[in-house]
């Protein structure tokens, strides 16, 4: 036995890239069961479509189905794009909870030399892919069923690509902040990530124009990159047909893009520090081993 082990190649130490790739692979193994037709139907079709249909029915009950109004496209696209917030921001929290309480691998994981920050980021990749597929399906459904005014010719692809890259990085950073906090909390009905995703739903103006929020609450939405990301993504997708609402009426695309970039970078730095702090705190309090049940 010992001789056999001696013949094994020398162990290569983990670095951030290898950690990220391994975690992405692991996440894929865990999430990839969505390739099963039933699970694909649940996660990529049933949940997102049901979620957007709630808004469609609410809208139709009041407006008698006038889906050609600009507010309809605003609500629909905001909700569709919001799928990524749920997947990425909540995803990282659930990774922490499931590693700790379902698979019970936290102890083993965090006693290896892996970089936990990149591990969590890697685990989020699979969820992001699932989210992107849902987003495409939901938007496609909107175009076909409700004639959303999106056409491949009029989409501002450059703006869309840059916005999406920055948006996803900012969501991943926010996810890490939430994942870090999750390390120090019990398993609740939802996770901290779910919680913040829920809060952002309100403050980022995902499904209604921010102008409706009382003026004292509006600044909360304005500090999150997600708010600018949603606005820019809508503008890019709807192209010249985009009709804006009061809050961002005076902002050009490049102006919004600059704000998104700066806010994303700030959040990224904050997430690294939060993770380090939470990791040390969880070690101090023994929260790595926590299992909640009641």
């Amino acid at each position: 036995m010992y001789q056999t082990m001696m013949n094994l190649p020398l162990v290569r130490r983990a670095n951030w890239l290898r950690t990220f790739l391994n975690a992405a692979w692991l996440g894929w193994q865990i999430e990839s069961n969505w390739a099963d037709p039933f699970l694909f139907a649940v996660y990529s079709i049933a949940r997102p479509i049901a979620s957007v249909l709630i808004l469609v029915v609410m809208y139709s009950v009041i407006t008698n189905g006038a889906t050609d109004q600009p507010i309809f496209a605003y609500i629909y696209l905001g909700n569709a794009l919001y799928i990524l917030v749920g997947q990425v921001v909540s995803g990282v929290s659930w990774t922490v909870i499931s590693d700790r309480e379902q698979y019970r691998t936290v102890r083993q994981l965090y006693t290896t030399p892996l970089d936990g920050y990149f591990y969590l980021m890697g685990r989020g990749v699979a969820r992001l892919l699932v989210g992107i597929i849902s987003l495409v399906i939901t938007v496609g459904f909107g175009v076909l069923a409700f004639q959303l005014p999106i056409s491949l010719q009029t989409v501002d692809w450059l703006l869309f690509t840059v916005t999406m890259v920055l948006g996803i990085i900012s969501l991943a950073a926010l996810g890490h902040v939430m994942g870090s906090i999750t390390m120090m909390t019990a398993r609740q009905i939802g996770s901290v990530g779910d919680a913040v995703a829920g809060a952002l739903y309100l403050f980022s103006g995902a499904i209604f124009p921010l102008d409706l929020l009382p003026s004292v609450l509006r600044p909360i939405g304005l500090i999150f990159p997600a708010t600018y990301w949603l606005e820019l993504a809508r503008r890019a997708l709807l192209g010249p047909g985009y009709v804006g609402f009061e809050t961002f009426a005076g902002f050009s695309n490049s102006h919004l893009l600059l704000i998104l970039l700066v806010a994303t970078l700030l959040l990224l730095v904050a997430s690294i520090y939060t993770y380090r702090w939470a990791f040390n705190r969880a070690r101090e309090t023994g929260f790595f081993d926590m299992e909640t049940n009641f």
Partner: protein
Amino acid sequence: MMQLQPVERQTGWRLFWNTIWARAYPRLIGTFRERSWFFFEALLPVLSTVSYIYVYQAINAPEDYIGFVVIGGSMAAFWLNVLWSMGSQLYWDKDDGNLQLFVLSPAPLMAILLGMAIGGVIMTLSRALVIFVVCSLLFQVEYQTGSLWLLVIVFVVTMAALYGMGMMFSSVFLAAGREVWHFANLLQEPIYLVSGFMFPVKALGFWVASAASLIPLTLGLDAMRQLLFTSDPTIGFLPVGVEILILCVLAVFFIAGAAWMLAKLEEIGRRDGRLIERRR
């Protein structure tokens, strides 16, 4: 060793009754011991409920629709509790090794499930009340309180049917194993949609609303809205009396179904040796 006296054991209905409260206890005490629920399960649902209210405001909906969302948002707490703390609870219990101890004790499994349910209703009532009160105050929703007793009856039978369904889910989800997540996920947003959490279910048309009535919250919500708001009496799907009657039938059906499935589950578990024991 200190001499231990032999004990008298309760059996029958007394054992059943005491088991219910013994199992409800961890849920009730959890409310006081782990206070983070207030943030996660009360304040945050307030935020998502408020989002839907703003959607109605953005499209200039009549005032009552804000109240509809408040009721739907509050009752959603019960649906989440049924899915995640009833449906998947036996699965967690199996995973922790509790289920096999429950099974080999003389306590009836049905009493354990009822304990989970009663603990769950009381625990969730606190969440639902916070959502209801905060949202109602924020948006100054006006309710009519003429049929308070009828409202209480609707709530009680809705809870009986809903948690009966949750008890049945417990067995189904346990049999499904790790797939439990997927079932619960499948039933979250789609049920918010078809049960009319954010709008009167009548808007979905007779057939969809009828099919959705299998979920007790559909008729429960519809009846509560009819009793609490007066401005538009045509919003109701069925007359409140009929809805109460159907909810009673559903309660009996789900609770009896849960008892049957639980017995079946134990039988399969003992035969296959897998369902009730902890394995990894």
